[in-house]
């Protein structure tokens, strides 16, 4: 089992979700996050004072998947999230030793 984590631009969420469904990922979890990176933030001006806002709204997607499909899933995310502009985000993969479906107690590949 692997946990695949992707940080993407919010407006690509729908596309990535569809792409993941297409490669058979049936469950995932989404978090609204703030990203800091090469893209840089922006400046807001309130009453003439400048506020450097370093963080850019991003969306984090997490999905635990079977080892067999990891590459496919990563590719699907990268393809769907890509806009070729700075700030497109990152995908990373970490090992997961166990996955349990709470409702049934099923484990690992059965729980995906």
């Amino acid at each position, binding site marked *: 089992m692997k946990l695949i984590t992707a940080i993407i631009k919010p*407006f690509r969420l*729908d596309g990535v979700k569809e792409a993941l469904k297409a490669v058979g990922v049936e469950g995932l979890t989404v978090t609204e996050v*703030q990203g800091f990176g090469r893209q840089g933030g*922006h*400046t*807001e*001006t*309130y009453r003439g004072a400048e506020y450097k*806002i370093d*963080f850019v709204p991003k969306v984090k997607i997490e999905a635990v998947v079977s080892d067999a499909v990891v590459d496919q899933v990563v590719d699907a995310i990268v393809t769907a999230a890509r806009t070729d502009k700075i700030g497109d985000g990152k995908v990373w993969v970490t090992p997961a030793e166990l996955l349990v479906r709470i409702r049934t107690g099923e484990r690992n590949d059965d729980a995906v």
Partner: protein
Amino acid sequence: MDSGDNAWLLTSAALVLFMTPGLAFFYGGMVRSKNTLNMLMMNFWCLLVVPLLWAIVGYSLAFSGDGDFIGNFDKSFMRNFDMQGNELMFMIFLATFAAITPALISGAVADRMKFSAWAIFVPLWSILVYCPVTFWVYPGWLAERGSVDFAGGTSIHVNAGIGALAVILVLGKRKGWPEKLSPPHSMPLVMLGTGILWLGWFGFNAGSAGAANGRAIQAFVNTALAAAAAGLSWAVTEKFRDGHFTNLGVASGIVAGLVAITPGCGFVTGGSSILIGLIAGVVCALAVGLKSKLGYDDALDVIGVHLVGGLLGSILIGFFADPEAFSKIDEGYEFLGGLFYGGGTELLVEQILANVVTLIFSFAVTFAIAKVLDLTIGLRVSEEVESEGLDIREHAETAYSSLDRSTI
């Protein structure tokens, strides 16, 4: 000058001015949070620019002189006012109406219009569209022929509604529309706007009596009942069709009822205003569905609510106007009777004519303004700005900041 009439007009003018922030919240709650401040700003902008323009030249163009088609400059810069006759009050009361009219259009262009273009559009439209139409409908030729418009159905709602259509035809659809829809980012903000609009509308309609008299009371009653009736009938329509009573349905129905009773609230009686409200709620609830069929992206339904509701209310006067009832309330208050009240079709024909004329003129001139702006400074933000959000890019502001509680 009667102090009681003054008191009511002062109050009414304050309440109508408050309607524009109310509209800002009504619309601002419906858009996504990344475009909320742009929406507020489009509305507040009208409050800054239009009253000044109105005091300087607009009022004079819309109400001064004996012409048929447009006023003159005699009363520009607030000169030559009849100070005994309350004209200053009249001017500022009407300034608040002039301000909210272009603000109505902001709902249609939400999420994609350049703010610089809006900033210029508002004064241009006020002078080139609002002033002449107001002149025709009130002191000018349409009024002289016999059509009526108590508080601004034709000159405000129909006028802004058709103008909205003209602008969005030039502006185009939002990216992703109609496949990708976003729900209102804050329904409590929408409901706050609704409450403020209803409150202010009492000043709008009952203030248009120009005095704290029986006509004002009747207009007030009609405003309350039509809004309630339309809120109810819109909500019930949705309950039957979609299975739920929704807050947005109630809010939309209330506004539709207020729009529909605006032209007639000083010409019809309470029972008719309930009927007008009930009809408006159902018709507008159905009318907002047209845009996806016809393919114009009227983001927050200015056409379905203000154009359709305004037309409906204005034309229904031709059926429900009841001069006899008002003769008991206010002596010497004369207007043509509606079809159901022994007046034949004359009023109905005039109401239709006044609206048709307004539709044609306002559409044509608004379209021209939008086209010129589009060809010069550009009407629409870039795709990038549209997807990043107008608040940050057009105004360098964010509606809600939470992470920043972390600093210090």
